[in-house]
């Protein structure tokens, strides 16, 4: 009997133990398969599933004729998993000549065994990637990444801008239109085995990326190239520090060319300094000098403070408050009509007219022509220029502002001034992009440019005629801008450069801005040279203007057009308003007599 009960007890114990074990297993089963199944399913999925973001192809940037200025392609990025690299030094020694990197730097990257991923070289070309693969170094591999390329190199670099390593726009139109160009990235989910191979019958999901839209510019590649080449020659010939050239259609505001020097190659933008990458035509301001006299002239004629046939006594200097203004060269007192004042670019004659106008009215016209406010061109970082309110003008500022000192504008602003005159007094917002082109070639045009009337068409025509005299007149300062067979209107500018952060001036900016054909303006061209030698805009910038304008007219097939009467249609003063002193034509004004 004792034997039997002992055996029975042992039997019971075994049964209980087995039951307990089974209960534990059953409980675990319920836990794994039931209560916590979602967690384990997810855990298993993370072990098998590989989720990869598929980068979208960035849209291209095209010129107005459809030529590609910026495009995307696929390049290879070389990376390493240092844990699988058997010999970091040997690997670095083999990779260094192919990647063009110091072996020590590569050895440091390959030797960091705590890291599972390290970039060795981003976006290298196919032959380089093939050579790396041929080395067969364990732990070294390549993957595809999109790369931005600019086939025309430096052409329109400041307009295009550039993108960063992650393909996001960092400057220029690449930055401004980044949302449209970037597209939408896709995603791929696949199941892989422990060796990284895809499981054929495993889960697979693909959300394809959407390509970005193409951006169509107003830029004409050929004119852009001609502008850049002419600017480069001018900077070299006249030993200037740099410069800008712009070509614009006055009726639409479309910019056909925008060139700056110094420039850079967007394919390798890191090699250029920040200053070289800056689009000085839109971002940097300068004092326009005599080129600004067109506003003084338009304001005076529009306000009726002077007519085109009135004669002014113009000495070579003029005292205003604490400052004495001078003309560019000494001369006896001249008797000049207002068109002759503009033709000869007389500072004193212009200041005398401005004194009739008054600072409030001069300021009003400066503002109406766009000084002190953004043009609204679709470009990041545009500067509004500097125009202080008239109540803050110092006593001599009426004189300085009338001749284009003490006010600061961007080249695009002064271009808009001349485009307004060329366009019959209607200001048109400048633009660089004509639209974006979606998949299938559907174009979404850019919003129509805003417009506003600044001066009457008659006034604009008269000012245009005065600007023709600058080029064609016997004493005109812009004779080097003349184009055989065409009537050209324009104005020279030789402005002092203010010392940055200080008082006073140092150096000069030479410029010539004009349009053609003067009778039916189709193009406006502006040339601005920074510290040329000699300093005169009529000597340095005017020939460059001629070169660019001539090429552009020929390229676009623009004929000579109707001829405008030099000096403009007679525009008698319809009656002065405001606080100007009375003026008797043919005789020095009261104010003149005292000066």
């Amino acid at each position, binding site marked *: 009997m004792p034997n039997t009960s002992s055996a029975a007890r042992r039997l019971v114990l075994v049964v209980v133990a087995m039951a307990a074990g089974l209960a534990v297993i059953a409980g675990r089963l319920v836990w794994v398969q039931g209560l916590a199944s979602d967690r384990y399913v997810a855990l298993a999925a993370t072990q098998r599933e590989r989720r990869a973001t598929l980068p979208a192809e960035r849209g291209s940037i095209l010129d107005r004729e459809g*030529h*590609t200025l910026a495009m995307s392609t*696929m390049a290879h990025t070389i990376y390493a998993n240092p844990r699988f690299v058997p010999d970091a030094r040997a690997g670095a020694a083999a990779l260094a000549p192919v990647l063009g990197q110091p072996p020590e730097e590569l050895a440091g990257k390959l030797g960091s065994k705590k890291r599972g991923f390290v970039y060795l070289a981003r976006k290298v070309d196919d032959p380089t990637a093939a050579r790396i693969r041929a080395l067969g170094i364990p732990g070294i591999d390549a993957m595809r990444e999109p790369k931005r390329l600019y*086939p*025309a190199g430096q*052409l329109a670099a400041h307009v295009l801008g550039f993108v960063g390593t992650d393909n996001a726009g960092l400057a220029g139109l690449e930055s401004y239109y980044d949302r449209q160009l970037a597209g939408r990235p896709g995603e791929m989910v696949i199941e892989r085995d422990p060796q990284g191979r895809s499981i054929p*019958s495993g889960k697979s999901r693909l959300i394809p990326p959407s390509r970005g839209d193409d951006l169509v510019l107003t830029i004409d590649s050929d004119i852009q190239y001609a502008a850049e080449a002419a600017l480069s020659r001018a900077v070299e010939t006249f030993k200037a520090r740099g410069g800008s050239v712009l070509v614009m259609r006055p009726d639409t505001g479309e910019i056909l060319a925008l060139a700056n020097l110094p420039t850079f190659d967007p394919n390798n933008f890191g090699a250029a300094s920040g200053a070289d990458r800056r689009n000085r035509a839109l971002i940097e301001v300068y004092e326009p000098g005599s080129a600004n006299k067109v506003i003084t002239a338009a304001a005076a004629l529009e306000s009726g403070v002077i007519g085109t046939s009135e004669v002014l006594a113009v000495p070579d200097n003029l005292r205003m408050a604490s400052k004495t203004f001078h003309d560019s060269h000494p001369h006896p007192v001249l008797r000049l009509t207002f068109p002759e004042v503009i033709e000869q670019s007389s500072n004193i004659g212009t200041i005398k007219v401005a004194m009739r106008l008054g600072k409030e009215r001069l300021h009003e016209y400066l503002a109406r022509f766009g000084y002190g406010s953004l043009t609204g061109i679709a470009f990041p970082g545009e500067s509004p220029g500097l125009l202080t309110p008239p109540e803050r003008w110092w006593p001599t500022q009426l004189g300085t502002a009338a001749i284009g000192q003490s006010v600061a504008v961007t080249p695009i602003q002064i271009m808009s001034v001349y485009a307004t005159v060329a366009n019959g007094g209607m200001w048109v917002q400048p633009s660089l992009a004509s639209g974006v082109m979606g998949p299938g070639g559907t*174009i979404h045009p850019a919003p129509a440019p805003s417009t506003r009337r600044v001066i009457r068409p008659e006034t604009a025509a008269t000012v245009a005629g005065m600007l023709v005299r600058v080029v064609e007149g016997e004493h005109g300062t812009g004779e080097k801008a003349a184009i055989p067979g065409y009537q050209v209107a324009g104005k020279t500018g030789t402005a002092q450069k203010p010392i940055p952060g200080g008082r006073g001036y140092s150096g000069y900016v030479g410029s010539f801005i004009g349009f053609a054909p003067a009778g039916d303006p189709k193009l406006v061209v502006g040339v601005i040279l920074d510290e040329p030698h000699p300093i005169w805009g009529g000597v340095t910038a005017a020939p460059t203007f001629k070169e660019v304008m001539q090429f552009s007219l020929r390229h676009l097939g623009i004929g000579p057009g109707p001829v405008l009467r030099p000096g403009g249609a007679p525009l008698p003063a319809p009656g002065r308003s405001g606080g100007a002193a009375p003026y008797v034509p043919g005789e020095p004004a009261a104010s003149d007599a005292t000066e």
Partner: protein
Amino acid sequence: MSIRPQRRERPKTPRSATKVGHLVVIPGGAGRGSLEAKPAEEPSGRGPSRAGLPRIGFEATPAASEATRPGLGFALICSLVVGVSILGLVVLNVLVAQSSFRLGDLKARVEEEQARSRRLHYEVSAGESPAKLAEAAQRLGLVIPEHQETLVGPPDPALSGRPSRRMEGILKVREKAGLPRAKRKS
């Protein structure tokens, strides 16, 4: 007094008897046939004596064919179906895997070809850039004319050339948007 289990006597089987399944075949049995059978397991004691055993007569027939065994045939068919199904699944799986790898290879090739196409596009774009064209023109001895003559007259459509289809689309949209048409090169 202890109770001892009674020894049960094992029924004696004739020496010449042969066991076939649960039957014992006794040669020389009664009947028209040649077999005499009795149950192999026969309870001892109380069972009927050998003499009183009812004789079961078996008729000798030809050996049963496979087809006449319904269980075996069914099993064979099932095995065949299962075997073929498994083989089919394996083959299908292999084919799917093969196709999947081939698809992967083709996708990689498509990517490579697309990348090649982009590279060629880039080379074409770079080659037709104004700087490259000017360089090539200079190599050929062409120069930019210093003087130009302009013939002014009614436009001749035959000389104007036609814009590309793509640019024609762009120009049409520009016209619809109220933007002016860019003039073509003369």
